[in-house]
């Protein structure tokens, strides 16, 4: 088995008295694609946000290549650079062009040479079919285009792991495909990813492993073939049934 990249050990997340993630443990290996599914409000986004230290945690620990991720830690900005994240709502910087959105962090934070990053940015933009949008502003793009740019922006940081939080949930149906295709290509390149999605067909195709969360707990952790054809728990069966349409 490949090396362990991310380890989540007995993670607990609470908002006040409200337990959102309850004793969650998960290991992600290098090159692995983990898809997280579960009904709305079960804690999927919270899990990703904890991995990126956007949320404080109340118990357990999260380590990236052995380094502990802590919200108040000194090296948190360095760790976050190794974790690429794309959110559900378009979170590009509206005052910057597409190219400057992509360049900002590699140039200003990682202090890499602008020429080098620019060349890489154009290479990636071409791969997602948007090289002609480099000088556009986010407001001039469609939702699907914005999400592809957000993916490129994350990739340009050379992250070790990518987190995707329902990146197609706010898109019109005809734009879902173009974004998911980009993610599929990343999977083929052997990138390590944790993907939260409600697109079950996509999950089946992209996942090495499916994590099913119910009420803040991981209750299934299995191969996609196993999960989709023979879910172990009643909750997972009910969940999968929601995606089936049959006439009574």
């Amino acid at each position, binding site marked *: 088995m490949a090396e362990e990249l991310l380890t989540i050990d007995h993670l607990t997340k609470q908002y006040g008295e409200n337990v959102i993630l309850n004793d969650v443990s998960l290991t992600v290996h290098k090159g692995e694609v983990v898809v997280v599914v579960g009904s709305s409000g079960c804690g999927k986004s919270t899990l990703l946000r904890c991995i990126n230290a956007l949320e404080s945690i109340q118990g357990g620990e999260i380590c990236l290549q052995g380094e502990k991720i802590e919200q108040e830690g000194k090296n948190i900005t*360095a760790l976050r650079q190794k974790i690429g994240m794309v959110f559900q709502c378009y979170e590009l910087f509206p005052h910057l062009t597409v190219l400057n959105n992509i360049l900002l962090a590699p140039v200003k*934070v990682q202090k890499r040479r602008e020429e080098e990053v620019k060349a890489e940015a154009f290479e990636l933009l071409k791969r997602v079919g948007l090289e002609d949008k480099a000088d556009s502003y986010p407001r001039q793009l469609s939702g699907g285009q914005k999400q592809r740019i957000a993916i490129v922006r994350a990739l340009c940081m050379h992250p070790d792991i990518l987190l995707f939080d329902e990146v197609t949930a706010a898109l019109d149906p005809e734009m879902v495909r173009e974004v998911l295709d980009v993610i599929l290509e990343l999977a083929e390149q052997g990138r390590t990813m944790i993907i939260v999605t409600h697109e079950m067909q996509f999950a089946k195709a992209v996942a090495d492993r499916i994590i099913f969360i119910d009420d803040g707990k991981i209750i299934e952790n299995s191969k996609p073939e196993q999960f989709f054809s023979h879910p172990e728990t009643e909750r997972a069966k009910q969940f999968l049934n929601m995606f089936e349409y049959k006439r009574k």
Partner: protein
Amino acid sequence: MPDLGIEVLLKGNNLMRLLAGLGVALKISLIAIGLSIPLGILIGMLVNGKNPIIKGIYRVYLEFIRIMPQLVLLFLVYFGTTRAFGWDLSGETASVFVFTLWGTAEMSDLVRGALISIPKHQYESSAALGLNRSQTYFYVIIPQTVRRLLPLSINLITRMIKTTSLILMIGVVEVLKVAQQIIEANRMSSPNAAFGIYLTVFFLYFIACWPISRLAAYLEKKWR
């Protein structure tokens, strides 16, 4: 052609006197604006914090300034405080003081509004890219705040310039006061002068404010 009394303008140095009056109005408003903008930014950022005492004092200040007509504030400071505290305040100083008080209140409210209008996910996506706090403010939050703020503060500036027409009421000889003086002096020789002179005053205010509001419109379009 009706007699508009325009010829009065050319008598003696009347036009120069009007321009000098406009100069006084502009001087007072520019000093007040120069003070209000940094103070307003400072206070607007301060009240965006969590301290409830600062917030409470600020609310009272803002409401008080908002409710009070500017003229009442001018009278209060110029006639009221000079009597009550026995100090000697020139009309111009009192005007600068009142306009700064007012401008700072309005400006701080604009800054506060612009800051809270930046959505939370802008902070979060900056953090997710590894930006630290000061990089987030410098590259992401402040540029967006300034873009929202600029057209609004330019509108405030033109409002402040226009409102200086009130300060003749506390004896400051600004453009409107000069106009009255000219009209009064020529009542016998050109009884129609009022129209021409006030029309000139109108154009003077227009020349002072119009470029500024065009700039606001331009920036609004550019940064939409």
